[in-house]
Structures are given as structure tokens and as C-alpha cells.
């Protein structure tokens, strides 16, 4: 079904692009435990991306790799949030906090969706993203309530991602068509923001007072970062079209 395939690309591309970002941390993290933790999160996300893109591809006979490596930028459906750069560790944690809280609420609902494959993928993913969220929450508390410097950086990290939170909750005609086969993004706004505010409160951090940016990732209108991400991700596969690996 073409609509389900589109929706699976929303979720799959978010997972894939975020995995790509996190993958760049490995061997560069502040401590060995974080090389492993961020690697683990990236690995879960690649796994989710594979399931989702595989499912998306069944609609028109494309493989997960056809979708990952041979779509151009405008064909991607990732949100601007996950395309944002790693920045320092605090910026990455801020992005993780928002992304994992969103994904957790999303998959918790999607596991009850009427589309069985999406529901099954979500049922597995929700357990993984619960861990991702715990990881981000712990670090938000540590950085928010650690040293002056960590607090300053955590505030800057939250400011950097906050304009891109709103995009995650935008409904589209696709969502109307999908009905109970998908999760309506607007229904996630309240629980996600409530969960985020709760963490910020515990960490002694204020919610950033920044207006949302109009984005458009779900319609293929991306941040200026995605082009660079795809150039790197796809370079080898595209150098050898048709090859097996």
C-alpha cells in the first residue's frame, strides 16, 4: 500500500538519519561507555530503519538498500530534528532527548495500530527507544545539574533543537488517509511536551522560549544538512550501482 509505504518512510528515514548522525560519534565520545551506548542506540535505529524501509519497499518492489542509497534528497522523508548536526555532546543529548521521547510516544501507540507489520515493528522498537530515552534523560539531568559549563552547554543544545520540535506533530493528508493504520502526529504533541517538560524541570532547565521553524521534511523539503549527510552515506553504494555487498 503506497500510503503505508510513505508513512514507513517517515519513520524509517528518521531512524536512518539519526543513526547516521550518532554513528559519527563512535570512537569520539567523552568516555568509552558512551562510545558503546551511542553505538548501541545507532545500531537499534539502523535495525528499525531496515524493518521500516523493507516494509516501505514491498509496495513497489524496492529493497531497503534501494531506498536508503538510491533515493535523492527530495525523496527522503526525515524530519529536520534528526538532520541537525551532532554539535557537542550536550547538543547530541538534547537532540536525543527530543527524538527518543517522540519516538517512544509514537511507537507506544503504533504498536496498537491496525496495520500489522507497522504494529509489530513498533512493538519491538518501543522497547529499544525506551532505553534511548532513559539514556538521554540521565544525561540531561547530569548535564543540566552538573557543572556551570555543562549547564550552559545543555541550554545551548536545547535551544539548537527546539525550533524543530513542532514539525514532529504536524498532520498531513497522508495521515488522514491512513486513519488507524498510523499514529496521528498531532496527538503526540501533548504527551511528548509534557514528558519533556517533566525532564527539564527535574534537571532545573527552562523550556526554551523559541518560535517553531516551518520545516517540511515530511514533504521532502529538508534542512541544508541532509544533502551533506546523504553525500557521505550514499557515496560508496552509488559508485558501484547494482553491486552486492
Amino acid at each position, binding site marked *: 500500500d503506497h500510503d503505508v509505504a510513505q508513512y514507513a518512510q517517515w519513520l524509517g528515514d528518521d531512524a536512518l538519519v539519526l543513526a547516521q548522525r550518532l554513528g559519527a560519534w563512535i570512537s569520539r565520545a*567523552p568516555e568509552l561507555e558512551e562510545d558503546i551506548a551511542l553505538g548501541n542506540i545507532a545500531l537499534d535505529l539502523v535495525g528499525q530503519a531496515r524493518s521500516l524501509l523493507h516494509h516501505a519497499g514491498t509496495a513497489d518492489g524496492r529493497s531497503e538498500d534501494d531506498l536508503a542509497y538510491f533515493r535523492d534528497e527530495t525523496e527522503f522523508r526525515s524530519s529536520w530534528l534528526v538532520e541537525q548536526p551532532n554539535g557537542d555532546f550536550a547538543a547530541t543529548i538534547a537532540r536525543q532527548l527530543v527524538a527518543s521521547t517522540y519516538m517512544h510516544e509514537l511507537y507506544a501507540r503504533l504498536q496498537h495500530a491496525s496495520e500489522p507489520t507497522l504494529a509489530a515493528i513498533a512493538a519491538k522498537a518501543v522497547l529499544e527507544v525506551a532505553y534511548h530515552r532513559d539514556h538521554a534523560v540521565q544525561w540531561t539531568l547530569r548535564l543540566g545539574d552538573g557543572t556551570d559549563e555543562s549547564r550552559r552547554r545543555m541550554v545551548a543544545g536545547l535551544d539548537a533543537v527546539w525550533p524543530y520540535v513542532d514539525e514532529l506533530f504536524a498532520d498531513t493528508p497522508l495521515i488522514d488517509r491512513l486513519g488507524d493504520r498510523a499514529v496521528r502526529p498531532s496527538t503526540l504533541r501533548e504527551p511528548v511536551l509534557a514528558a519533556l517538560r517533566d525532564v527539564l524541570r527535574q534537571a532545573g532547565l527552562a523550556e526554551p522560549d523559541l518560535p517553531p521553524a516551518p520545516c517540511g521534511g515530511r514533504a521532502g523539503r529538508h534542512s541544508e544538512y541532509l544533502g551533506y549527510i546523504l553525500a557521505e552515506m550514499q557515496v560508496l553504494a552509488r559508485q558501484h550501482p547494482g*553491486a552486492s555487498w
Partner: protein
Amino acid sequence: MTTTTEAPPRDDQQVFDALIEADSRVEPRDWMPDAYRRTLVRQISQHAHSEIIGMQPEANWITRAPSLKRKAILIAKVQDEGGHGLYLYSAAQTLGASREDMLDQLHAGKARYSSIFNYPARTWADMGAIGWLVDGAAICNQVALCRTSYGPYARAMVRICKEESFHQRQGFEILLALSRGTEEQHQMAQDAVDRWYRPALMMFGPPDAESPNSRQSMAWKIKRVSNDELRRRFVGMCVPQFEALGLTMPDPELRFDEETGQWEPGPIDWDEFHEILAGRGPLNAERMRRRRAAHDEGAWVRDAAAAYARKQTERPAPAGASNHKEVAA
């Protein structure tokens, strides 16, 4: 040969000697000669450092892996290497070394790591060659170390060996796919094994005749098999696998010794080995810079975690903060 600072009570040394003689394990609480302890700390931490530095050449290809399956496998592999580093630092800690000190030694350039990681990983095929040849050579070493005399090290090796043999198989599979792929892919695979085979042979260390430290380690049963013997075992393992891969072994002087029943590699350029050991490899400086940068740029994060932990113990935890599980130290 042992140089203890104080002469041990006669029975301690005798108990230790008897343990070694009996092929039993020395455990952290047991008395052991200082030199035995120092040798182990040096060797285990060097091994841990190698895992950490060894993450770099492979991490460079995570974002460019040519299929999602390969990307997942590569992430898992590099992550395993981090995990091996952690086990090994823990094993060294049982000997009284602190992880911080060991890392400081690494960052100060005073501790070694396996010099093979000072070669660049130039193409995707290097992910295959590193997994198959470098991890393969490591396994030859490590299988022998599963019987090493120090208990925690031997147990870490058992666990590591299991994971390494996965990695080796995955490396082989990468090369097999390339070798059977397009002409360009096959060429990429051959080029990668051409570059990594010799350095892998050097991983076993200098020839036995030129390896004076080995003798004491053998006596202590830290080391159980000699460098040259391990190297021959590795070459013997490679011969049929190169054939299965359809790749040419880059050693025209390789010969089968009918008498010993073993394959003998051609002469090795030990000058290159010593150059790299002396810091003159292509990427010695680069690898160290990246390691130090990660550590230095992460200092504020570790400080924050420490400050937060201190605050948590100093004051009663707020009601809401207690229900989050601890994920990372």
C-alpha cells in the same frame, strides 16, 4: 630474573611457582611477583589500548557502509571493540592499575597499542581485510591466551575470543561478497588483502630469536605459544581461506615445509615493523591525536557526571529523579 622490591616470604614464591607449574590460575588475591604483575598490567593495558585505537579505522567507514546490513554489522563490531576495551581495563584493574592511569599513559604516548592500526583503512574492502586478517591474527594470539596463567585475563580472553571469531567470519564474508562481485569489487578486495596481510603477520611480534621478553612470559605461562609458532599457525589457516575467497596470497615466497607439515611465510621486512613501532607509521600521530581530542573534548562531560553524582550523594534525591535507571557511568 624477577625483580621484586622486597624479597617475598619463601612460601609465597613457592606457592606461586607451584600454581604456575600445575597450570593453575593465579587470582587477584594470590601473592605474585611484582615483575609478573607489571608484565601483565603492561600487556593487558596494551591489549585494551589496541581495542580502543582499533575502533578508529573501522569507525571511519560506519557512515559510508554500502548496505544497511553491513552498516549494522560494522557498528556492532566497533561497539564490541569498545566492550573488549572495557573488559580488559577491568582485568588490569584487578592487578591494582587504575583505568585513568592507563588512559593517561596512552594519551601521553607512553603506552603502546598494536601498531597495525597505524595503517589507514583506505577502502570498504579494508573492513573485510581487517576483520578477517587482523582479527584472525588476534584470535590466534588470544586463543593461546585463554590458557594464560592469570585468571581474570584468561576469562576475559575466552569471552573476547568468542566475539572475535564472529568478527573474523564477518570480515571473510565481506571479502567473499567483493571477490565474487564486480571486477572493481574483486580488485578492491585483492588490494586490501595485499596491504593488510604483511602487517597482520607482524602482529605476532618479532621472530622468537629476537624476542627476549617472550622467554620470561613463557616461563610464567602468561604467554603459552611462541611468536613464530603462532605466525605459522596463522599462515596455515590463511592458505585454504585465500583459496576459498578466490584471492591471491601476497607472498610469492610462501612454501610448504614437508618435514614440519607447516606453511612457512617468506621473509618479513622487520625494518618497517620497527619504523612503525618507533612512531613513524602513516597514522601514528593521527590516531593519537584523535584519541586525545575525544578525551580532552569530553573532559567537561566527565566533570559534569562527577559533579552530578557528588550532588546526588550529598543531598536527598528529589522524588522524581529516582525512577530513572542508571544507564552509563
